[in-house]
């Protein structure tokens, strides 16, 4: 019986990858907080992850077969310079995303520990 790491770690590798990519998007939003005309972007995490899982039949992740669709954020208030970055919203999203990243990582660590235990006996 062979151990397939992809199957053993389950959804968490996809989730971790997606969280990493989302960090880049949210960091871009925070970086362009004062740039006139910049429109804040984000990905629909649930939709991207489920499409990543459905691509399992061809053995690839959605991040490899195509980029997750980036959507534009709808601001609560419009600003005169056309910038749609709202600092509070982005900071909250970034912070939540970091926590979710750590959560996915913890799950992977738990799985790896389980595998190690199974191998070492």
């Amino acid at each position, binding site marked *: 019986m062979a151990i397939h790491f992809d199957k053993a770690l389950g959804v968490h590798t996809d989730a971790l990858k997606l969280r990493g*990519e989302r960090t880049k998007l949210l960091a*871009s*939003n925070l*970086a*362009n907080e004062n740039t*006139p005309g910049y429109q804040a972007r984000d990905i629909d995490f649930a939709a991207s992850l489920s499409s990543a899982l459905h691509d399992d039949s061809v053995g690839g992740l959605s991040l490899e077969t195509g*980029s997750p669709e980036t959507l534009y954020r709808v601001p609560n208030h419009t600003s005169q310079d056309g910038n749609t970055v709202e*600092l509070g919203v982005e900071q909250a999203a970034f912070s939540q995303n970091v926590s979710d*990243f750590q959560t996915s990582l913890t799950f992977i660590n738990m799985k790896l520990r389980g595998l190690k235990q199974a191998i070492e006996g």
Partner: protein
Amino acid sequence: MSFRNIAQIAGSAMTAQSVRLNTIASNLANANTAASSEEKAYHARKPVFATVFDRSAATDDQITGASVQVLDVVQSTEPLRKVYEPDNPLANEAGEVFYPNVNSVAEMTDMMSASRAFETNVEVLSRVKSMQQSLLKMGEE
């Protein structure tokens, strides 16, 4: 993983905000510098930011990051303050001197905004650093 890109994005934003703080410092320092003519007087400076989408580094299967670039530093076109000071050594024939068009209150609020934006990006960097460190420790425990 795209952590290197994130560091570059946050770094570009920090550079842009430092340029902004730099112009604010110049404006506030020269707020009361008199001059003998309109041309010689100091004009308030302001940086113009633009987004740079990093398409060269990213392949099709990656999300493009967006860093910040300082396009230019422009001078304000608002009218200068003309003051009648005949005893000022810089006064022209009509006894007038020109003071810069710096709005101290606007500059102070701009300074707060710039330093907050800078701190936001420092925070992004430190959070990304902790993510990267815990990623490196994967499977060790």
